């Protein structure tokens, strides 16, 4: 920016608004990255569609999981409030301490998820209990004044009409005492029936309670909380308050924050939300372990996402964000991701693939492997004839779809078997099992062998319950291929049941068989005992149950070997599997130290200026000063002499001066350098 002014000074420049407002449609971002970009618009649309579906699904899950908690919470609120209204004439309640109903809501340490929970809680409360729901955060309330101000302003926003708002807002600032609040409340509740907003609740109660949610109980200061509770307990008769404490750690924090004199004013009831690990399991179950969404994650990506969840933050929101990122990255970087959609749609899309895309298919490693296995005429046809390729690709996609349906059924079945084993050789959660299965042939692993060994030792009732569960898993799917498996399991179950009957008969016969030991000498007795022992051992191996158990284990083993092949054995799997783990890691697990080091050590990496390109070990004099200083410092990082450092810096920079005559004189330059050095 330039001014016409002669003197030095500060000048205000208004930003040019017209210039800024040029925005690129989002689809276009998909174009830019890749030179050979194909169907970028279609890809973006597909991404958008799938993401919308996934988002809906997660929201639905969230609601479902929260439902129990919210229901009990709402019931508590309703009960405590109606109690407040009803028995005010009762002998007991007249004398009893008037306690503020309080719900302690333990939500777990994943603080980032809490906002969402509180938002839906507020909505639920507003539609079921009361229009007056206020939530406060500790950072807004450093002292009681701010606390009450926030409370008042939020409360009045809850229900004030637009006209009266101005007049009230003037009042708001001056009056934020509990007195004015309770008088406001009586005003509102008495005049309210006129207001349309209140009508749905006014049928329930004459005076709806005011619910105050303290989002992060841990961070509130003790004094603010104490004073507020003391004050509001004195006004409870005219101002029916209900508190909800959002607790991240454990409910003991209440005792730590509030002394007995204050906590005796509260009627605390505890509510615990679902553990976030269980939440993750359901999310995985509904988003990834299903054929509903065509998009899949490779083993490494899944590992990164779950690791971030388990090791760092326990946050479901972050996990879903990570999932979204990988979805976006997949559609952005993989041109063949157009095929990542529902099966009929994908088949349709194959028909309209361009030549370039066909070439892309041919270049896929999995497809190449597939081609190599074919007969030579077919190989030629696949590599030259577009139409043949498209038909083949269609059938391959269909195979992939079938593979997935079978895969998840068998995976669940195997999980039923392994999740009850002692020490969990294949993991307790299905996600661990899924990761191992994605990575390699699971039957090659030692854990699998040991799991099978443990399975061979299961008792009958355990085995039967597992089989029944497996049967349910298979029954729930309508797939034809595995229908026979369900039948087979049913047969096995029937055999187990018949075993019961047989065993009874056998017992009867063996009972008659065993003759009492005859009176003999010691030697004979020993001998006969040994014989009996031998007999038992051999006969044990041949019991019908054991044969059957062996059969079951073998059956499972064969299922696993047939259906749980890792996905990279499948041709065209690249279209639906996202495997760029390192990109994901770069984005999600930022490493500022590495980034800074790269920026200082190799400025070209970020600045993309050709002049900065340099070989290893050489310090370009055109680089930013700080890069030069940093690189020089690297050369002797243990102990560095400040004079030497500045000297070396000057040498590097002035080296250019001799070659470059038309730049500023070296004296001036030196001055600048000295100045800069003194700044460092």
């Amino acid at each position, binding site marked *: 920016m330039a001014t016409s002014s002669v003197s030095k000074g500060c000048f205000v420049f208004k930003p040019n608004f017209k210039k800024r407002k040029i925005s690129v449609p989002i689809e276009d971002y998909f174009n830019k990255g890749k030179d050979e970009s194909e169907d970028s618009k279609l890809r973006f649309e597909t991404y958008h569609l799938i993401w919308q579906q996934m988002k809906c699904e997660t929201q639905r899950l969230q609601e479902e999981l929260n439902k129990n908690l919210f229901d009990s919470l709402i019931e508590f609120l309703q*009960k*405590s409030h109606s109690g407040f209204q009803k028995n005010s004439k009762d*002998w*007991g309640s007249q*004398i*009893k*301490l008037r*306690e503020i*109903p309080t719900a302690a809501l*333990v939500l*777990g*340490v994943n*603080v980032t998820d809490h906002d969402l929970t509180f938002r839906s809680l507020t909505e639920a409360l507003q539609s079921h209990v009361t229009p007056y729901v206020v939530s406060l955060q500790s950072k807004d309330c450093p*002292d*009681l*004044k701010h606390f*009450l101000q926030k409370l008042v302003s939020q409360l009045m926003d809850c229900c004030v009409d637009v006209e009266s708002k101005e007049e009230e807002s003037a009042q708001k600032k*001056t009056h934020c*005492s*509990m*007195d004015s609040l309770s008088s406001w409340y009586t005003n509102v509740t008495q005049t309210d029936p006129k207001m349309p907003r209140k009508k749905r609740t006014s049928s329930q109660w004459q005076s709806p309670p005011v619910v105050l949610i303290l989002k992060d109980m*841990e*961070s509130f200061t003790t004094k603010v909380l104490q*004073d507020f509770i*003391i*004050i509001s307990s*004195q006004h409870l008769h005219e101002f029916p308050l209900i508190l909800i404490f959002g607790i991240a*750690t*454990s*409910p*003991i*924090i*209440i*005792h730590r924050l509030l002394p*007995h004199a204050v*906590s*005796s004013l*509260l*009627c*605390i*009831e*505890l509510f615990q939300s679902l553990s*976030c690990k269980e939440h993750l399991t359901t999310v995985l179950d509904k988003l990834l372990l299903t054929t509903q969404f065509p998009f899949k994650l490779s083993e490494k990506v899944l590992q990164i996402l779950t*690791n971030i*969840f*388990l*090791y*760092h*933050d*326990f946050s479901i929101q972050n996990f879903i964000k990570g999932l979204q990122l990988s979805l976006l990255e997949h559609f952005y970087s993989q041109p063949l991701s157009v095929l990542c959609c529902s099966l009929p749609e994908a088949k349709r899309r194959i028909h309209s693939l361009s030549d370039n895309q066909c070439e892309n298919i041919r270049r896929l490693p999995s497809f190449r492997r597939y081609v190599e296995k074919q007969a030579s005429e077919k190989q030629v046809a696949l590599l030259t004839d577009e139409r043949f390729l498209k038909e083949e690709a269609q059938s391959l996609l269909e195979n992939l779809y079938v593979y997935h349906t079978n895969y998840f059924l068998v995976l669940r079945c195997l999980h039923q078997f392994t999740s009850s084993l002692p020490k969990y050789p294949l993991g307790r959660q299905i996600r661990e099992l899924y990761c191992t299965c994605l990575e390699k042939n699971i039957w090659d692993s030692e854990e699998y062998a040991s799991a099978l060994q443990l399975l061979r030792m299961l008792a009958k009732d355990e085995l039967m319950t597992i089989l029944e569960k497996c049967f349910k898993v298979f029954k729930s799917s309508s797939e034809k291929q595995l229908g026979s498996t369900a039948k087979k399991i049913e047969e096995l179950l029937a055999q187990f049941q018949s075993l019961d009957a047989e065993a009874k008969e056998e017992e009867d016969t063996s009972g008659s068989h065993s003759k009492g030991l005859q009176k003999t000498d010691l030697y004979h007795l020993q001998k006969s005992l040994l014989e009996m022992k031998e007999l038992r051992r051999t006969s044990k191996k041949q019991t019908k149950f054991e044969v059957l158990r062996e059969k079951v284990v073998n059956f499972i083993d064969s299922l696993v070997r047939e259906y749980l092949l890792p996905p990279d054995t499948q041709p065209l799997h690249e279209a639906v599997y996202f495997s760029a783990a390192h990109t994901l890691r770069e984005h999600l*697990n*930022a*490493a*500022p*130290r*590495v980034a*800074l*080091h790269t920026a200082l050590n190799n400025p070209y990496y970020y600045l993309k200026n050709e002049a900065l390109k340099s070989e290893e070990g050489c310090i370009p004099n055109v680089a930013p000063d700080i890069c030069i200083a940093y690189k020089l410092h*690297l050369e002797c*990082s243990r102990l560095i002499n400040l004079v030497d450092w500045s000297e070396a810096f000057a040498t590097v920079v002035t080296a250019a001066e001799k070659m470059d005559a038309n730049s500023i004189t070296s004296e001036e330059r030196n001055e600048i350098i000295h100045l800069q050095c003194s700044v460092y």
Partner: protein
Amino acid sequence: MAHLENLVLCRESQVSTLQSLFGERHHFSFPSIFIYGHTASGKTYVTQTLLKTLELPHVFVNCVECFTLRLLLEQILNKLNHLSSSEDACPTHITCETFNDFVRLFKQVTKAESLKDQTVYIVLDKAEYLRDMEANLLPGFLRLQELTDRNVTVILLSEIVWEKFRPNTGCFEPFVLYFPDYSIGNLQKILSHDHPPEYSADFYAAYINILLGVFYTVCRDLKELRHLAVLNFPKYCEPVVKGEASERDTRKLWRNVEPHLKKAMQTVYLREISSSQWEKIQKDDTDPGQLKGLSAYTHVELPYYSKFILIAAYLASYNPARTDKRFFLKHHGKIKKTNFLKKHEKTSNHLLGPKPFPLDRLLAILYSIVDSRVAATANIFSQCLRCWVSDLQRPHGAPCSAECFLSCRRTFLPTAFLELPLITSLVTLQLLTLVGHDDQLDGPKYKCTVSLDFIRAIASFQSFQDTILLALWLWQRWQ
């Protein structure tokens, strides 16, 4: 007067003192009266009933509610205004910012006909809050009579003795009146006073006797006792209602209710479970043992690295820094056993409470605890900038060792940069606290606020390696 005696029990001497202080309506009374006594010793109640039954003009203000000077003064003036003006007229709202204005406005307000020629009483409940307000406020209130030249008496109610109020600059000394605690006899009398209408007074008095027998040792708070009495009374009546015992059958009733009361002492009294839950238990006759109190939920589920950081923080907080080398370095060499611990360090570290520790010490211990087993996946460490200098010789991402941390404490980059997200999240959860981070030269310092039990629960869950167990074991030996 007989009416007053019925209302105020066991406070005869205090009432008569106050009455003689007040004197006749038009008499000037003592300028300020300071009443103190323990919680629930009847200060507020006695003053309030006295003023009400004698129909004296008074203003009652609770100082907790008035967190600013302005609120307090305005509340007094507006209430006075209400008193003085006739009922149908709606008085205007008075605004008042300073004590000076207050004195002026007070004079105006008390000019009214209805307040003339009689003492006006201003009662300030929870007067200890006045100390935190402006310095001129308390001395001002104490000599309000003199300042305004009106017939006014200020009564201060507090739980704290007068000596703790007296400002440095000196002030007018109020008349100090002490309300002693109720004796057990007094409590018995007061509690049995409010018996339910459907039962006889004797029956309720017997119940109160049992109640006091259980609770008197732990609680003398009248309010709390009364609450507990009401809460547990249905259980006491139960045999009578069912027809299993008569009202006279005290022994049987006692046997029925005593274990119940003892349970109540452990749960309801401590607010482990709420009184409404307790009532529900009574109704359903379930075992209260099944219902877990608030303290039962101690387990906190933490992410993997947060657990390690917390353990490291605990070790750093309770361990003398000198011993780090011995505990956490692989090759620390031999240390003479005799002089290992200095004398003052031999006192239990748990008695001394957590000590602040710098961030790099925490990270050094963290490294030595996690060792190599998470190195492959741990990107967390690449975010640590402190070891910038010595770490650059190694490929990126590989964590530097504890040795490196302990040997290299050079500050190279601004410390604000070092805030690890995980540590910050632990601070927001109040498991760690940040101490004094004003200094830009030093790194941030933390304290670990969790208990040994908490750490033990985490550590056992983690199936720990020897170092930590050794360190934990060593502390216990010191204790």
